[in-house]
């Protein structure tokens, strides 16, 4: 597609920036319960992280689609396939972060177990986005900043699941989301 490459570059920059902001602000908001200096900034960090997570959730699928149209064979090698998988992981954790924030509001940071879960969602989302950036850098430049790490996944290989198994997993995933929402409803009713 004609403008897919420049659009992909732009949107990847946005999603990487928003994802980083989401991750860092969420970690700082989580730390604000433990570090007294951060307590006054808790509300600001929470709002910044929330806004950044929404932007990340908008830009990540756009980055996926523009990336798909930027190359001639988007799933022709393991390294491109891995981009789809890590995009899925990043979107999954980012949407979980947003869901947690919508369900519990700012109160989420005042309950240790929920705050830990929220911080982990943001952290895993950020890590997936970092891996995505690293894969992109490997494709375009042949190297990435994360090469300095002693242990790093081999992106030239990927775990390819049969399409029918993937479809079965989609059904399992959708079912698990529906069951989770049902659990939410029953939990709310029991509280009332």
């Amino acid at each position, binding site marked *: 597609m004609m403008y897919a490459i420049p659009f992909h570059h732009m949107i990847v920059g946005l999603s990487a920036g928003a994802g980083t902001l989401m991750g860092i602000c969420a970690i700082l908001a989580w730390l604000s319960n433990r570090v007294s200096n951060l307590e006054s900034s808790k509300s600001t960090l929470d709002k910044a992280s929330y806004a950044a997570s929404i932007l990340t959730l908008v830009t990540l699928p756009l980055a*996926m689609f523009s990336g*798909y149209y930027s190359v001639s064979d*988007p*799933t*022709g*090698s*393991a390294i*491109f*396939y891995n981009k*789809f*998988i890590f*995009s*899925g*992981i990043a*979107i*999954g*954790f980012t*949407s*979980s972060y947003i*869901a*947690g924030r*919508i*369900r*519990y*509001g700012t*109160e*989420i940071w005042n*309950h240790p*177990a*929920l705050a830990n*879960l929220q911080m982990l*969602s943001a952290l895993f989302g950020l890590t997936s986005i970092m891996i995505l950036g690293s894969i992109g850098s490997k494709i375009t430049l042949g190297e990435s900043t994360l090469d300095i790490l002693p242990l790093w996944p081999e992106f*030239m290989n*990927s775990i*390819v*699941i*049969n*399409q029918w198994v*993937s*479809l079965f*997993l*989609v059904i*399992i*995933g*959708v*079912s*698990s*989301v529906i*069951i*989770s*929402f049902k*659990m*939410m409803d029953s*939990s*709310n009713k029991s*509280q*009332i």
Partner: protein
Amino acid sequence: MKSRIIVVSIILTLLLATSSGVANPGGKGDSNRDFTCGGSCHGDPSLSSPSPAEIQIDMKSTAFSGTATEVSISVSGMELSNNDLIGIFLLGSKNGNNDHPEDYGWQIIQDPNGGTSNYVEIVSSENTVTVSWVLLAPMEEGQKEIFASIQHGSMYNHDNKAFIGETDGFIVNIEPIPENYPTLEEGWVSPDERVSGDSSAIIIRTVNTDSLSVLWRLPGESQSHEASVEMISDQEWEVSIPATLGDTRIEYQIISSMGEFSNQMPWLSIGTSDPYFDGTSLGAKLQSFSIIMIIFGFMLSLQTWFSPRGVSNLVDNTNEVEETISQQNNDYWSRLIKSDENPGWLWDPVEKEWVADPDLSRGEQ
């Protein structure tokens, strides 16, 4: 006047948008090319300069028509650019068109990089390069010429010039093939590469051969090993060479025999390619979507699991909102003052206006 300014502005913008160009400093890859072309304008004297390199062609001065022969090209004394890249041409002439050896009856069985191109690009950190092509000699007898040419950049190259070097023709006498001379069939080409771990046999087609043996070795190995060969049909042989992994190039040498006479051919090589990747676009999308759903469902369940009693969802704040509205209504009605002069009306001292008394109007009606 305004339109002229717009046109001039557009032209200026377009002119400023152009970037300074250099020819292909990173190379253009192996391919079939004529002399001086190389995908650039290197033939232009203002854009090129003679290379200080010394180029030498080494091959047998006599070859039987239609038989395999090897040509080695050694280049030394050059000073390469930062990327250590040099392009080497094997040519049948230096006319600038139809210079490919195949235009003169030669057939490339294998180029130095394992393909069948007459132009290859080599990366060398030293200032000496030796490469070899394996060719089938022309069927036409008589004298034939082979030329070599090079192109490269240079570390101190402020004018971005291409450095060009070339040889004089190396004369090869093509002699008639002896009767029943065992050799490769015309048109047979060595396979470029095999998939990593693939040990499937290589098919070799010959002429005038009643027995065939194949030796193989790994690069740098001095001792060669004999491969298993099986004749699958007349003049067609199946050769089993061990599978390779990584980016190994395995070398092999064909020796075709007819009676007591043997023809030992030049060493050929086969590269190793990455395993075939069987992922599909639909599979990637489904897998990605399933991961999103599973993670989302799992995290939602964990949130519900960890949710302590008393942490109500934002959607359940209806009571708080209703209480706030009720409080605001109470504040409003309590500040209104009854007036005897205007029965049925209440005075709002904040908004400074009369408001109909709902109790009185409801009672009267």
